């Protein structure tokens, strides 16, 4: 693997939109993504407005810590590491893979990413327009509740995982 490139100035993301044809291509991929399992085609079409299929090269960043939460990214192919930058090499705290959702900071103020998302491989993803999603959540209580609930599940899962990491580490250090 080539050495990572220097982080670009915020809020740049190393992304490019792919020729999607039309919104139907985005809806088709959303329908296959586990995060949206069970959502009607009609609602998927509403969610997909302003969205695009995107691609990131390996060793580039899908998101930058502190950058604006403008997109909700659903991974279709490839591996992404959530990283904490520090004095030494970046620390990977979680890897995400096809079928995972990348980040929830787009939903909650101040809408800033908490971590870097570094692409370990070439990545293909769906990037939904976060501003549009937030407006949709406010305008449609039913769909808004469903989407918020799913994001909350994601947050709860990752909180459980973080706590498990803490208590397992505690057991590791103190078991007699």
């Amino acid at each position, binding site marked *: 693997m080539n050495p990572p490139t220097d982080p670009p100035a915020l809020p740049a993301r190393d992304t490019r939109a792919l020729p999607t044809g039309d919104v139907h291509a985005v809806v088709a991929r959303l329908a296959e993504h586990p995060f949206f399992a069970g959502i009607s085609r009609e609602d998927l079409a509403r969610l997909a407005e302003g969205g695009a299929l995107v691609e990131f090269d390996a060793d580039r960043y899908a998101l930058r810590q502190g950058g604006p939460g403008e997109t909700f990214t659903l991974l279709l192919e490839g591996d992404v590491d959530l990283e904490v930058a520090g004095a030494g090499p970046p620390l990977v*705290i979680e890897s995400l893979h096809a079928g995972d959702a990348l980040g929830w900071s787009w939903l909650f103020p101040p809408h800033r990413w908490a971590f870097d998302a570094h692409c370990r491989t070439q990545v293909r993803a769906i990037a939904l327009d976060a501003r549009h999603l937030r407006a949709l959540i406010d305008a449609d209580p039913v769909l808004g509740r469903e989407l918020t609930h799913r994001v909350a599940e994601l947050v709860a899962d990752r909180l459980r*995982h973080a706590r498990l990491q803490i208590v*397992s580490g505690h057991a590791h250090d103190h078991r007699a």
Partner: protein
Amino acid sequence: MTIAPDLPLRDPLTARPYVVSTIRQQTHDIVTLDVRPAEAPIAFAPGQFDMVYVYGVGEAAISISSDPATPELLSHTIRAIGWVTRALNDLQPGATIGIRGPYGRGWPLDDAEGRDLVIVAGGIGLAPVRPAIMAALAQRDRFNRIALLVGARSPRDLVFRDDLDRWATNPAIDVHVTVDSAVRGWGGRVGVVTKLIPRVPFDPDGATVLTCGPEAMMWHTADALVKRGVDPNHLYVTLERNMRCALGTCGHCQLGPVFVCRDGPVFAWPEVSGLLEEREL
């Protein structure tokens, strides 16, 4: 439940001499001691444990981590956390230690016959399931899929790296490894071991699961497995308590109505999940 057959004990309170043949450094604070008996070897079942005695220091209960097909070369994998385990970590080849055992109920491999066998290990928890993996691979036709899910705090905390590398290229077993965190460049999965459970291919209706690790990890593992549809009666855990006599008489390892040393250390999840919720226990 079906439990590994009891194996006969000879003089269960008498330690027999064993000579340390090799010491394998697994991590910065974990070693595997390979020992050979000065007397005739004693058979053991996967999941059983020994009382390992450092003369002049004391005894500790340690799971057997070697191949049950070769009882003449016995392995114990030990983290240095107390007087005895530190003394064990400081031994040199040629040293003599005392071992009594094997004790306890082992992994119920018979329960997995004709089913998928899923093994979930956290950290040094790979050591007590390693004999079951070796036994299962030696009798591969008895099982459908065999999947091994391994988690560790970091890449440097992974034990039995050679085995993991070898098994990863063995089509007889499906190996998935993850770590809680890693410096960029690790290349493998990062996240808790329970994250692997929804992704690994196995039939939850027809799976027997063996799991070993910190209790918090086993709780979360059990939750994730049941959520996926695994029958808790086919989910087995091994518990670690303060074993002293190893015969179910002294009571140091008592967990409510059970003695972990005698009735375990391997239990079906429904046998102990309620007991583990009791704060007083």
